[in-house]
């Protein structure tokens, strides 16, 4: 029996107005006012063009494609920070994005303080995050650095803390964006083990990357997209 669908893209389209005309500045905008208004109305960049696919509960699902293929737009739509322009997108369940290295961290605060803040930014109440704080800090393996400001951390330590907070927010869908490249071999192994545990407990993991090896090592199913369109869907051959 196949598991229920938890993320459904049904002919989803997304365009961006070409904002560079206005992000170029007020001066340019006002000087070219008629042209600029017209351009904003007319010029559209279609990042996602009629994409349809579904992710099932408990799946490790990979989205692959070259730069500019629309991977990040797809992720942003799943995370709910960007709305589709056309088509229907259904996401059932609590999504936790894995943030870029150090995003939402403040370098003058300690690891412990940052973990609390990050957990709240990811949607937990303070009581919830405090209840899990010991687990989070233990998983991040920061030792005595827990109470040091994180400007003293290596990038690996920061990645561990960020990963640890994200996975402890009880996500139903975990979004991972090229993050596994950070941290040492040992920690990557630990993340993979944790992610496998997640999979078994029914958490859905959606991964984007252009690195085929990582993807095939971990994903149950991979789609490849190019210019915002689906190219292929395949199951990587299981590694012996």
């Amino acid at each position, binding site marked *: 029996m196949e598991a229920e669908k938890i993320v459904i893209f049904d002919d989803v389209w997304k365009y961006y107005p070409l*904002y560079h005309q206005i992000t170029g500045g007020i001066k340019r*905008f006002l000087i070219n006012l008629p042209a600029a208004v017209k351009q904003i109305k007319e010029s559209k960049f279609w990042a996602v063009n009629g994409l349809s696919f579904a992710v099932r509960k408990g799946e490790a699902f990979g989205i692959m494609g070259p730069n500019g293929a629309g991977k990040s737009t797809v992720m942003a739509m799943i995370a709910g920070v960007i709305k589709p322009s056309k088509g229907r997108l259904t996401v059932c369940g609590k999504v936790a994005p894995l*943030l*870029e290295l150090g995003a*939402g961290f*403040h370098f003058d*605060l300690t690891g412990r303080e940052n973990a609390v803040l990050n957990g709240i930014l990811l949607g937990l*109440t*303070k009581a919830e995050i405090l209840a899990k704080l010991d687990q989070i800090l233990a998983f991040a393996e920061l030792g005595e650095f827990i109470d040091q400001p994180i400007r003293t951390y290596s990038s690996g330590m920061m990645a561990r803390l960020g990963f640890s907070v994200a996975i402890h927010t009880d996500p139903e869908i975990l979004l991972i964006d090229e993050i596994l490249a950070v941290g040492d071999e040992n920690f990557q192994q630990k993340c993979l083990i944790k992610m496998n545990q997640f999979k078994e407990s029914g958490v859905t993991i959606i991964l984007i990357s252009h690195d085929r090896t990582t993807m095939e090592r971990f994903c149950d199913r991979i789609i490849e997209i190019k210019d915002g369109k689906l190219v292929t869907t395949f199951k990587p051959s299981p590694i012996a």
Partner: protein
Amino acid sequence: MTKSSRYYRDLIFELLRKEIKVRYKNNILGYAWSILNPLAQALVFFVAFQYIFKVKIENYVLFLILGLFPWQWFLNSVVASSVSMISNANLIKKTVFPREYIVYAGVLNDMVHFVLSLPVLGLFLIIYHQPIYFPHIILFPVLVLVQLFIILGISLLVASVNVFFRDLERLIAILLNMLFYATPIIYALGMIPDSLKFIIYLNPLALLIINYRDIFLFGAVNWPYFWLSIVYAVGIFLFGYVTFNRLKPRFAEVL
């Protein structure tokens, strides 16, 4: 309390705590430094206007402080808010937490700081043998609240518009500079020629500062200015709030 209202309370509280911690963490002098800035300004204006221009204003240092402290709050909040979305871009592009809370926390942080600077004001009241006028003093917290909403409105506006027009920051710097001199901070209301008096009515900050002074220096309240500043606060806050929420869904596309 429902889970979501508890969440918003935690969010604002933790963001504010972060701001305050970061401000005062690395140096014990953090507090002194930020008081020192308006005080140094007050000293410069004191020397320039009292001794060089020979302006006749009584208790001039106290007079200056009553304008400079509220101005400093306004200035810091608006400048910081204008870049607040851009500097949190990687958070905004990935997570759905309500972005306006970044602005709220920043403005509240400056408000806490403003309140913490009140002992300095108290000190100067003592130095100048100024009595505390009662019941006028009761209006002081109300004025602070009015100022809070004016600042929140402008901050929400500049934070959201600056995402789309990145050079707004520069324009803001110029406008703030002009606003400083258009506000009776270094001069008194009575010194403005009649032909320019209308500027006061267009400037909610001027209305506030005149009342801060009336309360502490003269034991009086300028009621028309007081009510007008409340009207401004409501209007500006609503305008900023609506603009921010209209533009908010597109932040992640542009950042």
